[in-house]
């Protein structure tokens, strides 16, 4: 009889959710289902972040991915797809080669992972990373921060311009 750690259990459950959600996302015939599964996956990833003590990141993940990106996806789906399209073939003819290549890729990834000795630090993660992250953003990473703001603005304008009906 082995002791089951609640952490381990949570990890495996979340992993399952993520991978299953991902697989459904990429394989679902119905695009809307894909989107919902994507939301599910993303939410699970947020959970994974919580496990990794990255609370702020988890919140951001939910806020941005679920609240914004996934919503955009769903909007996109709604604007470009009809329920009647469900019957269409959803994957292209190269799915089998792709599967093979993905298999190989995963194999090599796993091989590489086990092969690489990572230097794991013993220092525990600080509990409250939000404060530290905020400080870092405003000091050390202020330039990327500003650049990203600019990027967002550009994306905003760009999206409006691109999608605008002439």
């Amino acid at each position, binding site marked *: 009889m082995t*002791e*089951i*750690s*609640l952490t381990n*259990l949570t990890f495996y459950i979340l992993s399952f959710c993520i991978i299953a959600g991902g697989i459904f996302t990429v394989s679902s015939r*119905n695009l*809307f*289902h894909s989107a*919902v599964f994507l*939301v599910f996956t993303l939410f699970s990833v947020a959970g994974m972040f919580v496990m990794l003590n990255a*609370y*702020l990141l*988890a*919140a*951001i993940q*939910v*806020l941005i991915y*679920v*609240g*914004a990106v*996934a*919503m955009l996806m*769903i*909007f996109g789906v*709604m604007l470009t797809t009809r*329920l009647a399209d469900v019957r269409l073939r959803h994957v292209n003819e190269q799915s089998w080669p792709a599967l093979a290549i993905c298999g190989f890729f995963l194999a090599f990834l796993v091989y590489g992972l086990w092969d690489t000795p990572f230097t794991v630090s013993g220092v525990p993660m600080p*509990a*409250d*990373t*939000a*404060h530290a992250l905020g400080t870092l953003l405003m000091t050390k990473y202020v330039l990327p921060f500003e650049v990203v703001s600019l990027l967002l603005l550009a994306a905003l304008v760009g999206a409006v311009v691109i999608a605008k009906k002439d």
Partner: protein
Amino acid sequence: MLELRGIIDAIWSFIVGLLAGLGIPQWAIELVGYALIAVVMFGVVAVIVLFLVWWERKVSAKMQDRLGPMRVGWHGIIQTIADAIKLLQKEDITPKAIDFPIHFWAPVVTFVAAFMVYVTVPFGKGLIVSDLSVGVLYIIAITTFTVIGLLMAGWGSNNKYSLLGGFRSAAQVVSYEVPLSLALLGVIMISQTLSLGTIVTQQDNLLKWYVWRQPLGFLIFWIAATAECNRTPFDLPEADSELVAGFVTEYSGMKFAMFFLAEFVNMFTASVVAVTLFFGGWMSPFGPDFGPSWMWFLGKTMFFVFVLMWFRWTYPRLRVDQLMGFAWKVLLPLAFLNILLTGLGIYLFDGLK
């Protein structure tokens, strides 16, 4: 004396002792603990919401010079329970052309998301499930799930009214979320924390309520929150005169009840956030130890719920373009202004805290 934390702790240690005595492993006990907390929370909120439903009917009746429900119980106080039972008994109609899984999961998502907020809400002194370090952000994040649920409902119903309702809802919620978050930012800037517990303890008397320092912030927040809840005057997603019943058109029975409850939960949530961030939360106006904290909390919250109801029966519904325009052209600039002013205030009076 009337603080609930002590009572709960006592009950919990009793249960743990019992379970440990039965030889149940530690991880299982923890699991049971979490489950119990969830159930209790759900129960508490559900009860409150049931009460709210009744109360809304009574308030609206009073405003329209009626009596409202009077039959079931004293002044119809268990009317809601009766309604719920009725709904649960009803046939769960599932139309043929729907996208079944979506249609099925939509109310669940909405309902769950609505309840998930309460993980980090301080109901009273010590009455908080988890005082997350990113509490405010968490609440904002979780509330967005509601939209997903609504969109799912709209799409899954395969009905153009539903779809339009879903669309409207998504657009509205996304739009108003921006000024809402920005309005909360003012409080966050002053309090220097995202934790709700800390924010409450910082407002330990009437004068320290953040509403005094963030009047504009509160106003923006409150308007945006009203819209977030899809409450009149922002109830366009389910505008019955335009869209039949919006995204709930194809729902009935239990699923409809879930949507219904979720709406009230959201209403309660909005009030909770307002109270917690701007009105001292469970703190009494006179200090931390004046009367039972949870009563203060509930009292304040109920007042704001009442305000929402009051809105509902006072204001007419907005047009959809007015709705969006108001968010982007009025609230958003005001929110930015608020942030600027806050920043300026912090810069000028650094010792305000």
